C-alpha cells in the first residue's frame, strides 16, 4: 500500500514538474541563441562565444568594487550571497538551478541591473553570450 502511495505521489510530483517546466518560456540554450543573433547583428566580425572568455569576464572586476563572482561566487553551482546585504542568491549555473536563463524578461532585467553595477554600462551581446556559455559548462 505504501509502495502504491509512493508511486502515485511520484507521478504527481513528476507531472507538476513537467507542468511548471513547460511554464518556463524557454531553455537556456534558446536564450543563448537569441543572444547569438544579437551578437551577429551587433558586429560583423562576431566569431562565436567562448566559455574561457566568459569565465574570465565573470571572475574579473571591471573597474568597480564588484565582479559577477562577488555575489554569484567563483563556483556558480553553489548558492551565492549578495555582497552588501548578505541575502542568499540561488545558484547561477543552469545545472544547479533550472529556472536560470529561462525567462527572457528576467534575463534582460538582471543583465541591465548587474552590468550597470559591475561595469557602469550595459554588457555587449558578446559578453553576455560568453558568460552564459561558461555557465552552461559548469556542472554540478
Amino acid at each position, binding site marked *: 500500500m505504501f509502495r502504491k502511495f509512493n508511486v502515485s505521489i511520484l507521478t504527481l510530483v513528476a507531472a507538476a514538474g513537467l507542468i511548471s517546466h513547460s511554464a518556463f518560456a524557454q531553455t537556456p540554450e534558446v536564450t543563448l541563441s537569441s543572444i547569438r543573433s544579437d551578437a551577429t547583428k551587433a558586429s560583423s566580425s562576431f566569431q562565436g562565444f567562448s566559455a574561457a572568455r566568459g569565465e574570465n569576464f565573470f571572475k574579473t572586476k571591471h573597474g568597480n568594487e564588484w565582479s559577477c563572482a562577488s555575489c554569484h561566487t567563483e563556483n556558480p553551482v553553489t548558492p551565492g550571497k549578495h555582497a*552588501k*546585504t*548578505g*541575502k542568499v542568491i540561488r545558484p547561477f549555473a543552469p545545472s544547479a538551478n533550472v529556472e536560470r536563463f529561462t525567462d527572457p524578461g528576467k534575463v534582460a*532585467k538582471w543583465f*541591465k*541591473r548587474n552590468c550597470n*553595477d559591475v561595469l557602469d554600462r550595459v554588457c555587449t551581446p558578446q559578453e553576455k553570450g560568453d558568460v552564459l556559455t561558461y555557465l552552461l559548462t559548469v556542472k554540478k
Partner: protein
Amino acid sequence: MLIRYRKFPRGMVVALLAMGVMIPIVQAGDNRSKPAQPAQVNAKFQQECSSCHIAYSPGLLPAKSWLKIMTGLDKHFGSYASLTDQENKEITAFLVNNASNRWSGPSAPLRITETTWFKRKHDYHEISPKVWKNPKVKNPANCTACHQQAERGDFNEHNVKIPK
C-alpha cells in the same frame, strides 16, 4: 505615619503613570505602522523588492520616504535597481497606500535604520554592540537575523531571537 507613607507613593504612582503615557506620545512623531504590513501583499512588490534584500514592509516608512526611494532606483543605495515604468507605478502605489499611518513628523528618511523609532528600539540599552558585530547579523538592514518573521511584517519583540 503609616497613612502618610501610604499617601506619598500614590502621588508618585500617578506621576509615573502619566510619564509612561507621555513618553510614547512625545516620541510618536515618526513611528512605524502596526501592523507593519497589510494582510494582502502586492505580488510585484514581493517579487521585485526581495531579490537583493527582504521586502521591507511598507509601514516601516512614511509615504514621502517611499516616493523618494521609488524615484531614485537608478542609484538605490549604490545599486542600479531599475524597474519598468509599469512595475514602478504598481509597487509605488502599494507602498504609498500602506505606508506608516503613525508618522506625524516632517522627516522622510531613506533608510529604515535612520528612523527615530528604529534607533530607539535598537539602542545600546536594548541591543548590545556585540550583536551587531556577529557575522550572522552582519548589518542592521538584515532584519531576519533576529526578526525571523520580518518578511511577513512581524516585528513583535516576543518573536525576536538574537543569534548567538
